[in-house]
């Protein structure tokens, strides 16, 4: 599996404060990495640095092996897509038009909308399962539908790396299941998916790998179940974490309690 994106010794400062310190992380095609950590651990900052929105104070981000600064901004956006936690687009904007703006890194300000663009938008609508909402204005959608429309915009970029910041935070359980199933299909399609996830059992069952970010550094990474049961994860969240297997697969029952 090729390394789609990696960070080496990355430190990032925001407002004079060091938010990330010496972070090492890599993400391969077809991988699903759950980034977990307590509030203010630097998860969103890491996502923004990965897409080049925040500069590195030290270390570097490499996209397909090349430093991110060596790519044009459009070239980065054709390879790395960021899907935010909330959609803040104009409420009258139709879903399909919103998703079509995901083609901006491919089209720039003036290039026409080609059949290839049309195909990418249709595919994105289909994969996010929002085809039936294509002509609906965003303002008429439920929070869950809007989140899926936002995901479709990310997919329309046809990225090699898909970064999501708490994509399920506003979703009810049905939409959560739906979203993570879609993300799993995207991953199987060869995309490297990295999601910040607050729901730890969900993160453990969905991800192929997990990284715990604590105080701006990676405290643990590897197999999701092993990572979540590690002392490092327990220390990061300040809770005791245990699990028992349910049935034969990787499904587990998780128990969180205050640390003694």
């Amino acid at each position, binding site marked *: 599996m090729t390394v789609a994106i990696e960070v080496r010794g990355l430190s990032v400062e925001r407002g004079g404060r060091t938010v990330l310190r010496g972070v090492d992380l890599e993400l391969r095609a077809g991988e699903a990495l759950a980034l977990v950590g307590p509030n203010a651990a630097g998860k969103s900052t890491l996502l923004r640095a990965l*897409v080049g929105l925040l500069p590195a104070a030290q270390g570097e981000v490499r996209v397909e092996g090349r430093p991110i600064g060596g790519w044009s901004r459009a070239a980065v956006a054709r390879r790395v897509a960021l899907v935010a936690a909330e959609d*803040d687009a*104009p*409420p009258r904007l*139709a879903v399909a038009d919103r998703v079509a*703006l995901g083609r901006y890194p491919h089209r720039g300000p003036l290039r026409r909308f080609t059949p290839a663009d049309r195909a990418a938008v249709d595919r994105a609508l289909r994969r996010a399962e929002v085809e039936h909402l294509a002509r609906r204005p965003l303002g008429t959608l439920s929070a869950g539908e809007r989140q899926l429309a936002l995901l479709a915009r990310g997919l329309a970029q046809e990225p090699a790396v898909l970064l999501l910041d708490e994509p399920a935070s506003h979703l009810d359980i049905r939409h959560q299941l739906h979203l993570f199933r879609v993300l799993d299909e995207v991953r199987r399609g060869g995309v490297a998916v990295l999601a910040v996830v607050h729901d730890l059992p969900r993160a453990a069952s969905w991800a192929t790998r997990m990284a715990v970010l604590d105080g701006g550094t990676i405290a643990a990474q590897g197999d999701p179940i092993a990572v979540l049961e590690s002392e490092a994860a327990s220390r990061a969240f300040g809770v005791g974490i245990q699990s028992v297997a349910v049935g034969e697969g990787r499904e587990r029952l998780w128990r969180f309690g205050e640390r003694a």
Partner: protein
Amino acid sequence: MTETRRRRLAFLALGALLPLELLVAASLGSVPLPALGVVRSLLAGLGLGTSPLGETGEVILWSVRLPRVLLAALVGGGLALVGAALQSLFRNPLADAGLLGVGPGAALGAVLAVSFGWAHERFLALTLAAGVGAFAALLLIYALAHLGGRPSLQGLLLTGLAVGALAAAATAVLLVAIEEQRVRAVLFWLAGGLEGRGWEHAAIAGTFVLGGGAALGLLARPLDVLSLGEEEAAALSLPVHATRLAVFGLCALIAGPVTAVAGAVPFVGLVAPHALRPLVGPVSRHLLPASFLAGAALVVLADLAARSFGVHVELPLGSVTAFVGAPYFLIALRTQEGRG
């Protein structure tokens, strides 16, 4: 009705309405001209046939009516374009040219021209002084806002408010100090109007409105990306700061000369895009041209009303657009609060 069909109908209606209005506005006035005669005179101007209008009619049409109705269309179209663009830029359906600080700057320039007597001595002096005032205010706003690094949109707005207040204060001081008969000239300008405007004014407005409008059209897609929010726009590789600067600058380039030529014409930039958004959607490729057409139609009609309903003197154009725009605006606010 499907979205595309609704949009096509809206464009068709606007495309038919505007020429019709221009024709009616060119025909009606203190000396009415036959509409057919106006059409034939226009064709004669293009070298097709001969005009049936007499010498007086020709002079009225070509020297008075035509420049005025075309100027009205340019002023309305320009203000509506600026409104639509700024609403995307500020992600707020209530933004319009008034936010640029252009108005108070232009007013100060106009009052200066009158108080120094330039306006009486030189042709177009008032217009030019208003234009200089508008641009000086803009430059000052942008320079002040950038003192502490790249300003937020909010910082830019608040700086605009403060500079606008300063310009308004200076205007008030000058107004009090000016001789009484000159105050009238300023008041007429401040109230907004197209009385006595000729081809020179139409040429000034046309250059900036059409040139600036074409350039804004090239930024239609970046404007849409910008309307998604700063972070998403940047993640989609849009150079956010440069794009904002370009849109802001182009809006000023349109609004400055329009204000200098026509004075204050409020609400057009708010009403036209607001009314069109439900019909053609918020995508700039459609909204910008539709707003231009609607704004043009609105002001041609308002100017016709201004010169038709006044007794002895014309009604100020700015008052007419406010009489129509403010109630529309209040109703729209109540019925669709919070919906962009």
